[in-house]
């Protein structure tokens, strides 16, 4: 598998470390039900067959965390953006 790093270009997946679901948001620790929310944040994961947005860390490269859209069935990568720019429109960095 090859991941198009916005800084380094397309690189082999061996250079990256994987963290999983990138759609989760760290809950508000001050919330009333913070413990339940953190429980879901830490432990609950979907396992979709198809499009998946996930964190990859370019450990042997620029050391940037990337938000990668990958199809779990084909490993086709639709987009990869740096975490800090992850809210910009999709596809521009791929």
């Amino acid at each position, binding site marked *: 598998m*090859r991941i198009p790093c916005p800084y380094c270009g397309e690189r082999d997946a061996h250079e990256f*470390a994987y963290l999983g679901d990138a759609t989760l948001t760290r809950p508000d620790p001050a919330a009333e039900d*913070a413990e339940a929310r*953190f429980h879901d944040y*830490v432990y609950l994961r979907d396992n979709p067959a198809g499009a998946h947005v996930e964190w990859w*860390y370019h450990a042997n490269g620029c*050391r940037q*965390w990337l938000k990668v859209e990958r199809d779990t069935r084909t490993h*086709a990568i639709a987009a990869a953006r740096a975490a800090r720019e992850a809210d910009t429109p999709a596809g521009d960095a791929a």
Partner: protein
Amino acid sequence: MSRAQRNRLEAGGLVDRSQVLDFSFDGKRYRGHAGDTLASALLANGVRLVGRSFKYHRPRGIFSAGAEEPSALVELRDGGRREPNTRATVAELYDGLEATSQNRWPSLGLDVLSMNRLVAPFLGAGFYYKTFMWPAKAWEKLYEPFIRRAAGLGRAAEGTDPDHYEKATTFCDVLVIGAGPAGLMAALAAGRTGARVILADEDFLPGGRLNAEVHEIGGQQGAAYAAHVAAELASLPNVRVMTRTTVFGVYDGGTYGALEKVNDHLRVPSPFQPRHRFWRIVARRAVLAAGATERPIVFGGNDRPGVMLAGAVGTYVQRFAVRPGRHVALFANNDAAWRGMLAAQAAGANVEAIVDVRGDVASVLTEAAKAKDIRVFTGARVIATHGKKLRTIDVASAERGHERLYIDTLAVSGGWSPAVHLTCHHGGRPVWNEAVAAFVPGATPPGLSVAGAANGSFALGAILKEGAQQGAEAAEALGFPVPPLDVPHTSEESTALQPFWHVADSKGAAFVDLQNDVTAKDVGIAHREGFRSVEHLKRYTTLGMATDQGRTSNVTGLAIMAELTGASIAETGTTIFRPPYTPVSLGALAGHHRGKDFRPVRLTPTHEWAAKLGAVFVETGPWLRAQYFPRKGEKDWLETVTREVKAVRSSVGLIDVSTFGKIDLQGPDVGTFLDRVYINTFSTLAVGKARYGVMLREDGMVMDDGTTARLAPEHYVMTTTTANAAKVYQHLEFCLQVLWPELDVSLASVSEHWAQIAIAGPVARTVLSRVVDKDVDVSDAALPFMGAIEGTVMGGVKARLFRLSFSGELGYEIAVPARQGAKLAQALMEAGHEYGITPYGTEALGVMRIEKGHVSGNELSGQTTAGDLGLGRMASPKKDYIGRVMAGRAGLIDPDRPSLVGFKPADRTKRLRAGAHFLGLGAPADMAHDEGYMTSVAYSPHLGHWIGLGLLKGGAKRVGDRVRAYDPVRGEEFELEVCAPGFIDPQGERLRG
């Protein structure tokens, strides 16, 4: 030409007759030529019996001339280089080659276990499941050893492989897989556009079928044309031709795996050359031109040495100038096989008969055969064969009834199966094409197209066109301008074929899978027992599951199953293929990563210095660290370590602590950031001070610990444990980039930039004061406990001085640029000489931290909370931090959780053992009564007996209790006293001294 090569034709072939190569098979010496394979050289010398079959130990010969070979498997080389199950048909001959036959005892000619044939009824389909089902105990003791001895194939290598293997990655625009006519044209068409092209072929000679058949292409002989194209390709700077290279797998993103057999064609690899090279080829486009594999017709006695694929007979005659036998017949169902046989006849093979299942064969073929005195049997079939090695065949036809022919070589052709394997590697399923009676590629991996015989195009003219077209299209799709390419002219050829699989009325065992000894009858049994799915058929009969992966048997087995069920082949299904296409050596997969080179070894800046002092080193993660420094006369490590500890506690010692992770943090928000990743507060830390910190994972468990110092208002430097250095850095980057991108903080890993040496002991300050430069004040006032200052040492060397202590003594850590580390160690040795300064290793460090009650890797197990480790009070209640919420879960704050305490043996002479479990006095030794376990132990020179740290249910409130240490692994059980974790100087007076 050697006289001994009695089956070598007088002329022709692509072998170099000027080069005579000596080789041996089963100890007998023979000669062949450069350009031979082991199989062609054996045939040239009249050797036809080369192995025994897997299950029944039937005599077997050479069946094919390529990678599909099911029978001619031999052992090559010996000792650490021994290589079992090598296909003689693709093993390139070299001078001094030594091969032995497999699966026979005591010899190939006389094989005792061939009596397996007598018990064949018991070894049929499903015998693994049926015959040996009961009693289960007998498997281990009786059945399996018998089956292993009786049915084992080759022997594995003995000893370490002395050769080197390497891995490499390369990139191209167009990868062409296969250098037959389609591949050559594809590479030429793409190469002429200027695209970067790689042409890979498993053979050592490009050309594929052009070297094995007789054709005229654009006025040139086929093999000459192949050489001509290969030469042009070699002259193009943008084209790389990789022979002896098998592309074995298609991976994601246009990545292809390939194995280059760099030195298999030599007895021993050339100096500084690897045996094999594992290639990762990243290609923007690929053209698969892997050709096709001929399939046999199944009939009784079709496994005798002398029965051979028709294309193989043609290959041996045309390419190797070898007559596979004296009296040749053909049994076929297609026109191509006739042409091959007529050409073989013209080249000097003695073809005596052609048997075709078709009643109606083109007269141009039958007339040509008859003109050469070849007897023609149409509407006919081979119903039996005889001889240990083939001597006669029985032919039956409506026209002539039964007839016996004296034949020693029977060429068989049931048509061709495209080599679709790589198209399946992304889940594509081949589809049955009725027109060519073959499975052709279905969906292909992204970026890969298929050309030529691999695509079901069997006529040479069409193959050349398709290759050129696919090559050009691949380049064009990448934006390369495509110049016109004239595809050379070749004569039309008929590919007429009538599907025919199995001579149902033949006599004797009719083998579908020659390598796994699966017969047509086994397929029938599987069918009768209700197996309909192809995948079930495979597993039940083991059809196609041997090392050849059913190259010559899958389609035939499927077709026989279809005949039995009355369904069409398309309805019956298909088998798909997974990587690798052909076996890949484990050595190549490992590359240089084996033994001591499994991963890089990291040496500390003082490694050489420590080695000179006689240090014993220990692996800690990737690092080699000095474990202890034995002196002459010390009887064991314990004596050495005890001396080192005593020296530190009474005077001074030094240790390299450079392996700790070091992270430089700068920016206005570092304090805020650290407050969020540590459980304790760092924003309030004064400049010039350091603080011990603990960080959690988000699930509330401790991730790591270490000290972090503030060197300037916006500049901190963090240390992590050796083991977690990379993990912590990655975590911090995640927090910054993903969780809190609004924080203005920059991180840099500086672990390698700084050498860090700790000195500890009552006179540490005196020693330190002798290495720092004059203007650096290290007095207690200027550099108090937990102080951190910058300065210079050894006459201008930049340094950071931290007053820290892991040992519990007055201690400092001195960081200097990495390459000054050894010099610093030496300077400290000289400065402390009069105090007997003692270098110590990780063992003594461990003893002192246990004496002091500090936690380390054994306690930071990923299953402990800060509270478990007695560090709960460090957590600031005034802020949020990673892991805070989850650490507050009821189960993690339960006061009964196992938590850190110290232990002493009630009988002070007992030695404690890490891993021992705790049980209440008198409690039964079972999981229900388990109260935790010992994490770390040491012999305390200070106390004069063994001490331990462990996680005990109830923790601190158990101090003063007695429990049992229960160690069933070592068979030990004795009483312990529970004490506070801290066996020396609990008030910390020494380190503040």
